[in-house]
Every structure is written in structure tokens, then in C-alpha cells.
């Protein structure tokens, strides 16, 4: 009798777990942009770049990026940002190149070419390396090494693994299974951090200071308003509000204020 009950419960659990797997696999994915045909036969921007027409290349890529904000997938947008970064670098505008490469990494965090070019551009612009190599920088890089989709799959895989262990604990009990369950919970918590980080960053609207002399933060969106602080070149700030030619930013350490729109570069594409 004990065995029958246990078997029944086990079967129910397995059935429920299986349905969970099916649910996860068949659940509608996150918001997906309607993909355009990204593999065009010829890329006008690339042709212009090869021909040495940097202006033409920048225009073509910029237009494509602007048009494709909602329709192009993240990797293609990252590619366009990366290529625009190369154009900016070739023009000698290293800070703008840093902005483009940083924007590209937000979309495609593990691309080695982008990292290499970013570090080179930062070095040329006199900025410290993006990856300082210390613990905080490494943790930050690890946290955002996965795209949003990848982090969701990672978390789901951890939850499934945890489910298996919990099933064992329910059916068999014992100290070993309990310890494994706790370890599984720890695994889920760890696996959840990239997804949580993405969720917290979902509404971010960061900008990068690309003015060689830095950007003055003013109390009002007027050129003659009092300057309350200053942002160094390469500094990042969070956008709070926008007006024509002006952007209100929250500075990392200092009062919020307004900076000229031309002094900053948007990192969200």
C-alpha cells in the first residue's frame, strides 16, 4: 500500500514536471521584433565604407538603425552600432566611437571584436579601460554576458534542475535530498541574477558624455543657467527627461541637472 501510494504520487509529480517542461518549451517567447531580411545581398553602408566614403557609410547605417529599432533583431542592431563605431573612429572621433561600441555591447555583450575596438578607442580617447579587471568589473561583465533571452533560458534550466531535485526530496526524503534541494535553490538564485539584472535595466536610458571637454550639468535647460556639476568625458549618466536640445540626467555622484544633447551620446538603440 505504501508502495502504491508512493508510486501514484511519483507518477503525478512526473506528469506535472513533464507538463512544466512542455509549458516552458511551448510558451510564447518574449517580445520578438518582426525580423526583416537582415542578410541583404548587398549592404549599401558596407560598400560605401569599402570605397572610402565614410559619410555615406554612416548615413546608410544610421538610417537603417533608426528605421529598424523595432524590426531588426538585437544582433543586427549591434552590428550596425559596431560599424558606426568604426566610422567614428576612422573620422578621429574616438569618444563617439566609444559610445557606439558601448551601445553595441549592450545588445551583443560577448562580441570579441566590439570589446577589442572599445578598449582601443577608450585608450585613444584617454579613458581608462572598460574592463578594469577588478572584481566589480568582472562581476558586471559576467552579469550582462547573457542576452535577455539567454538569461531566461538559463533561469528556466536551473528551475527544471531544481524541480528534479525537489521531486527526489518529495519521494525519497532524507538529508542528502534536502541538501541537494537547498543547493538547487542556490543554483536558481544564481541563475536568476542575469535575468533580474536585465529586468532592472529594461527601462534604463543611459547616455555617454562624448564631449572632449566634458559636459556641464546645469540646474535648468538654459545655456546661462547655473552649472551644478560637471561630467567627465566618457562618463555615463541616466536620462530623466528630455527637452529640445537638452537632456536631464541623474549623475552618479552629484545633483541631477541638464546637459546639452549634443554633449552626450545615447546608448540605447
Amino acid at each position, binding site marked *: *500500500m*505504501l*508502495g502504491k*501510494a*508512493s508510486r501514484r*504520487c511519483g507518477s503525478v*509529480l512526473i506528469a*506535472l*514536471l513533464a507538463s*512544466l517542461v512542455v*509549458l*516552458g*518549451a511551448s*510558451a*510564447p*517567447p*518574449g517580445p*520578438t521584433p518582426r*525580423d526583416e531580411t*537582415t*542578410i541583404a545581398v548587398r*549592404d549599401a553602408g*558596407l*560598400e560605401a565604407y*569599402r*570605397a*572610402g*566614403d565614410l559619410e555615406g557609410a554612416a548615413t546608410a547605417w544610421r538610417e537603417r538603425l533608426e528605421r529598424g529599432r523595432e524590426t531588426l*533583431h*538585437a*544582433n*543586427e542592431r*549591434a*552590428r550596425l552600432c*559596431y*560599424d558606426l*563605431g*568604426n566610422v567614428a*573612429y576612422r573620422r578621429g572621433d574616438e569618444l563617439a566611437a566609444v559610445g557606439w561600441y558601448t551601445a553595441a555591447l549592450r545588445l*551583443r555583450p560577448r562580441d570579441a571584436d566590439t570589446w577589442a575596438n572599445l578598449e582601443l*578607442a577608450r585608450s585613444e580617447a584617454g579613458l581608462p579601460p572598460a574592463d578594469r579587471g577588478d572584481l566589480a568589473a568582472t562581476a558586471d561583465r559576467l552579469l550582462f554576458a547573457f*542576452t*535577455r*533571452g*539567454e*538569461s*531566461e*533560458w538559463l533561469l*528556466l534550466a536551473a528551475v527544471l534542475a*531544481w*524541480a528534479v531535485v*525537489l*521531486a527526489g526530496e*518529495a*519521494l525519497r*526524503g*532524507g538529508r542528502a*535530498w534536502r541538501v541537494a534541494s537547498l543547493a538547487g535553490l542556490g543554483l536558481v538564485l544564481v541563475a536568476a541574477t542575469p*535575468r533580474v539584472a536585465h*529586468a532592472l535595466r529594461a527601462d534604463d536610458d543611459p547616455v555617454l558624455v562624448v564631449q572632449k571637454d566634458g559636459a556641464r550639468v546645469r540646474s535648468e535647460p538654459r545655456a546661462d543657467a547655473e552649472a551644478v556639476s560637471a561630467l567627465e568625458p566618457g562618463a555615463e549618466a541616466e536620462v530623466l527627461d528630455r527637452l529640445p536640445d537638452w537632456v536631464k540626467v541623474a549623475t552618479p555622484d552629484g545633483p541631477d541637472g541638464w546637459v546639452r544633447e549634443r554633449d552626450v551620446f545615447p546608448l540605447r538603440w
Partner: protein
Amino acid sequence: MNRRASTLRGLALALLGALAPLAPAATTSPSAAPAAATSPSAAPAATPVPTYASVPASASIRAFASAPSSAPAAVQTDQPSVAARLSTGVVKLGGRAQLEIVVENASTARIVEVPAADGLAIAPFGQPSRQQSMFSYNGRVQTSVRLTFVTTVRPGAEGEYTIPPITLEVDGRPLTTRALPLKAVVDVQGEDFGFIEVVEVPEVVYDGQPFQLVMRFGFDAGLGVNRAVLHLPWWGELPGTIALEDPPRALGGDWIEIAVNRTETIQVEETGAEERDGRPFRTFWLRKNFMATRPGTLELPTSYLEFGRTDRLGRARETWYAHEEPIAIEVRALPEEGRPYDYTNAVGSFTAQASVDRRDVDVGESIKLSVDYSGEGNLEWFDPPDPARDEAFADFRFYGRTERKRVDSRRVTWDLAPRTTAVREIPPVRLRVFDPELGAYSTVATEPIPVRVRAIEGGEGLAETSAAEFGLDVRDVQGPAAVSAPIQGPGGRAVGLALLLVPALWLAGRTAVRRHGEPDAPERRRRRAARRRLARGLAGARSASEEARALHRFLADRTLEPEGAWIGRDARAWQREHAERLGADEAAALAELLARLDERVYAGGDEPLGAREVLGVADRVCRGGL
């Protein structure tokens, strides 16, 4: 009375003196005749005083006991003095002697200078040991302090040496020890019992040329040698060279660890017994790679093999030495005559193999040209050639270079792009090499690689741009073909649902299962393990009685009874009493199985029935609810 009192006082003082390591009579003092040591206020005495090195301890007491009757100025303990001595005056070549400097009656002392001695290696002195003692002299308690400096001395070759006087600063005043003689003799027995020899080393190498030194050593296998140390003065420090990576260990060899210079241990290969002079010798090989870095002469000083036996307590018993004479290697400078203008310091014999990642490109499109260099020489040290400066590559633009070292080769990859459609091939990449075998410069070139370059629509070639400096540039742009769609996630809802459902299901399942008892309870564990234990028991069973025993244990586990409960039990009768726990059909099958096992045990020669059959019935009764 006076005589007795005098004697008693002398005995008492002698007793006090024996408690302290005194040797006032054995040490020279400024007021006594100088012998083993010197001091600034030394004055010749009428009678010679024995030297420190030669007076035994017992003599010090005798000397001191007679102090009251001797001249009052025979012992003065308030003047500092120094004395030097060697543990032995004769040492085997390869061995060491201990040099001891004793400073008496001083509160501070330091060694100012240890002069260099030709052919002698004097190890640095450490901190001195300090010994303080008190004694009574003429009714007054005196304090004596002794500082002892110790080091070792090793002669480099056979012969007679003199350890020069060593200057010390004692309580602010300079004092000097005497010179000490030392003789080094060849350990004839050691040279017979063991050997060490360099079997392979070039006499001449060129600047930048790697070379290998091969050394063999060994000792008589019949001696029971259990201790050996290599003394290689050139190990880890051979001026004019760089020590290269050790050659890879051969698979299958016998490798042992041996100490080198008493500072590190290395692995050497034992190559088995070798007969020398009719006796078997254990022999070992040692290989070390170097690269010469400047012209001149490389001097490898005398190498020694110290070997011997230790007893069970680790104390050294016999010690022998064998040595190899110094070796000189001539390092020649690379000749200026015939040196190509684009020579990049490659020395050796190399081959080069080129490959590309693509051969059909548009004008300006990136091509990765990789050249693999392999061979003997300074493979990882030379600078790779610079094709950008080669006229053959005038129609190419270079974007960068990367390198990767492999186990036995080096890969250099250039990122280049054709400027025009006129390009038909990637020209050979030339590496200028100095070949030590030939003593001349030569060229190692890759084969040309045919490529097809198409024009871009509306263009003829690459425009002239101010490209960044070769080797320090951004990576090339990426075309649309270089990217693929990112992985789409399952969605936040699915993940959230999973996070909620899993613990809920677990709680529900857990509660349901535990309604019928704790699954981890000992009884339930016992029941669950019964089948596994039965299978294990049957796998090892060689007779029907062993099978029966395993089956009885299984049944007892399933019914939670003592192990012997099912021996001789009637399964059918049991089922009638416990109908809810086992079906009639299953009980019948079980009863039949038990009967057959009993028959085999008692009347059938104890032949086993077979695990499969027993397990089959066991599974059936489990399914039946047992």
C-alpha cells in the same frame, strides 16, 4: 688551614667554572700572547698560550682551576676577541667545510667583509648565535658573552687554498681573524663509485641559437645509495644565456626526483643499469635547454655529484663525490657579411606553411593570411617578417597581426585586404634565417596562394585613406552575413510560472507522500533497498543455499521482520493471514520458488536456480503489494 682553604676555594671556583663554557685559558686576550686571534691591544707574553682551535674543553677547566696559583694576568675576560676555525683542514672535492668565527666578550659584532678567495665558494654568514655565561673570579661575578658565526666553504677544484682573514666590527672596533689553510683532494673512491659527465653540448653556438646540454650521472648499484644531490653551479644561472623551456618528458620512462644545489628538486630519467668496470651502475639522464644571448665564452664550472647512504634515522653515513671538469662553449656573433636588411633575428632551420581563410573576395575585403613556422631554432624568439614593407605586397593593405604559439610551431596571422582587382595571388612571405649548420643566411618563403578579387559595384579599388598605424588599429567592420539572429527566450511569464509552480508542486507532492509515512524512515528505506540487495546477493550466489538466503533476507526486508523470519515459512499460510499484503497468486508463486530452492539445497546438490528466476518472482510479489 690556609692551604686547605685555598684548595677548597680553588675547587669551588673550578666547580663554578665547569658550569659555564669557559675557556679563558684557551682564548687569547689582549694581555696574553697572540696566537689564534688578534686584538688591538695584544702584547707578546712571556709564555705561549695555546690557541683557541687547539685546546680541548677539559683543558680549559684544568687551566682555570690552576688560575689562582698562576699569574693573575693569565685570564682577562673583559676584552673582546675573535677566533676562526675550520671543521676540517682537508675536504673531498665536492664537499664542504664548516667555518666558524667565535667572538668572545663582546655585546655586538658583525662581519664587515668577507674577502673573495680564488677557487673557494664561501657561503654568506647568517646571524650569529649568542651565548652568555656567568662565573666568579676572585670573588667577583663576571659575565662572558660569546657570539658564533657559521658558514660553509666549498673548494672548486683540487688543490690547496687559504681562507683569507675576515674583518669584523666588534663593539665598534675592527678585529680580524687569521688566515686558515684548506686542502681539497679528489675523492678517489667517489670517482670510482660514481660518475657525472656531460655527454652532449656543442662546442660552438651562435648568438641567439638554442642548444641543449645533456648530462649523465650514476653510481654503483651495489652500494645501496639512498641519497644523492647534484651540485651544478650553472643551473638556473648561466650568464650569457636564457634558460628555455625544458624538453617534454618521454612517455614510459622511469622518472625520479633529485635535489639540485640543495635549493630545488628536478625530475631526471633513469635509464636502467649500465655496466662499468664490470659492475652495474644506476644511470640517469638530465637535459637542459639554453639559448645564447651574447657572443663570448660560456663557462660551465665544475659539476659535482654528491651521493651516499643514510641510516634509518636519516643520518648521513658515507658520502662520496664525483665531478665533471669545467666546460667552455664558444658563442659566436652572427656575421655581418651577407646579413639581409630585413633580417629579424631568426636562428635555426625552419619551414613555413601559409594558408588563408578565403580566396574569393571583394576589393578591400579582409583576408586572414596565416603562416605556420616550425623547425629547430629560436622559434618563439625571432620577430616575424613584415610583409607590409615587402614590395611584393604593395597591392595589399594591412590591418593587423596576431600570433599564437603551439607546442612545436608558431602561427602568425596577418589581416590584409587587396586594394585592386589586379591582385591574382598572395605573394610568398619571406623570412630571413641564419642557419648555424651552414654558417650563412638563407630565406624561408611560403608558396604563393592564388586568389580572386572582385570589384565593388561602382568602384575600382580601395580609396586612399589615412588608415591607422599597422598593428594598432580597430578590427574591420562586419557585414550582414557575419551576424545571426539572437536566441529568443521563453518569456518572463513562462519563467515566472515555473518559479511558482515548482515549489507548489513540490509541497503538494511532499504532503501527499508523507501522508503514508516518512519516505526516509528506516523501514521504508529498508523496503526500498530490498530489491537492490537481493540482486546484489544473487549476483554473488554460487549455490541454491546462497540464493535462498538472499531471498529470505529480501522477504524479511519487505515485511520488515527479522532476517530469519522467512526460513521454513509457508508462504501460502502467511498470505491467508495477511491477505491485504499479498495476493494469492503471488503467494503461490513464492511458495513454489521457496520449495524448489529447498529441494535443491537438501536433495539437489545445492545447484543454483538462477538469479533471473528468483528476481522474476521477487518482482512479482513486489508488484503484488508485498
